[in-house]
């Protein structure tokens, strides 16, 4: 019973409490780029979820075989393999989505959510929790993308999933600046809710980045700087 509950927790934590986009601020590139419509957002979310679940499962199964020194290249290769499979599936069964996602579909391979979960979770935990973790994170990612996609499509083209709802269109929302703006406002809301719930709020995209270890210590010291800022 206890075990079941904790497994369920592995699944749900990615959806709200540790939402990869709004709380961990990972995978910002696809979040901004493909959310010009709700349909695109769902396509991207499902594709990334598929890769995330499969790569988490394989990486966690191989975690005792992969030497620690070459783990990042090994993870990237595994992820790239699944991205290629997903790319082929999308091309075969949803060519319209393949066209609208374009370059961002193969770029799932460098999405930091996937490498981040591999590094932080799947590389250390057994297969079943890793799959659930990947599924939860994927659902959280999709939900955040969908949320942004709906806002941007509604304001920018006056429709949701292609159904015309509003006579007025504010074109700027489906252009690049609108993406940054809507994302900023959503993060603000997430931060507000998190502070109210008494949770720690993330201030840089660096904190959850899988490469942060090599970066924040030497180059930017962004964690340190932000921490002092939070104090005052």
């Amino acid at each position, binding site marked *: 019973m206890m075990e079941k509950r904790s497994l369920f927790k592995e699944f749900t934590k990615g959806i709200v409490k540790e939402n990869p986009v709004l709380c961990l601020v990972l995978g910002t590139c696809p979040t901004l780029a493909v959310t010009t419509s709700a349909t695109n957002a769902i396509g991207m979310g499902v594709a990334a979820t598929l890769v995330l679940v499969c790569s988490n499962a394989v990486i966690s199964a191989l975690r005792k075989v992969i030497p620690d020194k070459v783990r990042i290249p090994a993870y990237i290769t595994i992820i790239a393999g699944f991205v290629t499979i997903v790319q082929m599936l999308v091309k075969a069964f949803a060519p319209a989505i393949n066209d609208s996602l374009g370059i961002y579909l193969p770029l799932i391979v460098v999405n930091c959510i996937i490498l981040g979960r591999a590094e932080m979770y799947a590389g250390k935990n057994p297969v079943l929790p890793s799959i659930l973790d990947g599924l939860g994170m994927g659902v959280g990612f999709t939900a955040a993308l969908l949320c942004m996609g709906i806002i941007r499509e509604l304001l920018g083209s006056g429709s949701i999933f292609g159904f015309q709802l509003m006579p007025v269109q504010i074109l700027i929302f489906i252009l690049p600046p609108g993406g*940054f703006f809507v994302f900023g406002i959503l993060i603000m809301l997430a931060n507000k809710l998190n502070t109210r719930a008494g949770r720690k709020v993330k*201030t840089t995209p660096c904190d959850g980045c899988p490469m942060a270890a090599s970066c924040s210590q030497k180059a930017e010291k962004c964690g340190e700087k932000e921490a002092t800022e939070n104090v005052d």
Partner: protein
Amino acid sequence: MLIKSLIAVFLAAILTENYVLCKFLGICPFLGVSKKLNTAFGMSVAVTFVMVLATAVTFPIYTYILVPAGIEYLQTVLFILIIAGLVQLVEIILKKYIPSLYQSLGIYLPLITTNCAVLGVTMLVLQKVDGTTLYNYTYLHALVNAFGAGIGFMVAMVMFAGVRGRLESADIPKSLKGLPITLVSAALVSLSFLGFAGVVDKLIPLS
């Protein structure tokens, strides 16, 4: 004509098709490393270098090995491995032979392996090659495009570092502090780049 088209490609990569502000590639370093001007500059130099190098290697491999063999689908796997290997190689060479440069650039190199802008640059030029889009980039065009993309990244980073410097002293509502205000100001910077739309096509018409 060749020079004209090269200039057009170069300017387009910087202004109208800026990889950060218009294509949303490389957002993580754009938001994470743009706090100080010198780190922003160092990161952009490293990115430009790796972009050109990666394009120089992946373009011939794609055109002369993958396409004739009919295994274009291996592109994603192969490219990410090539980039990872290249970055590692550059790091080792710099460390051994030019330690002074390694001191200033080497710290950014591990970050670049998983930078989507680098992978994006190498892939976007090829998408243009396989006939699905308008341009037909030659090897030279691809290299110029990669260099332009790097310079465009630098322009965006340096500009944004300046904007963020001003934000430090601004009085911002508490809930907007940190990342939200950074994103909102990124929206304004990106808005300014929107003004360049059509400039390159009008200046240097390619027929």
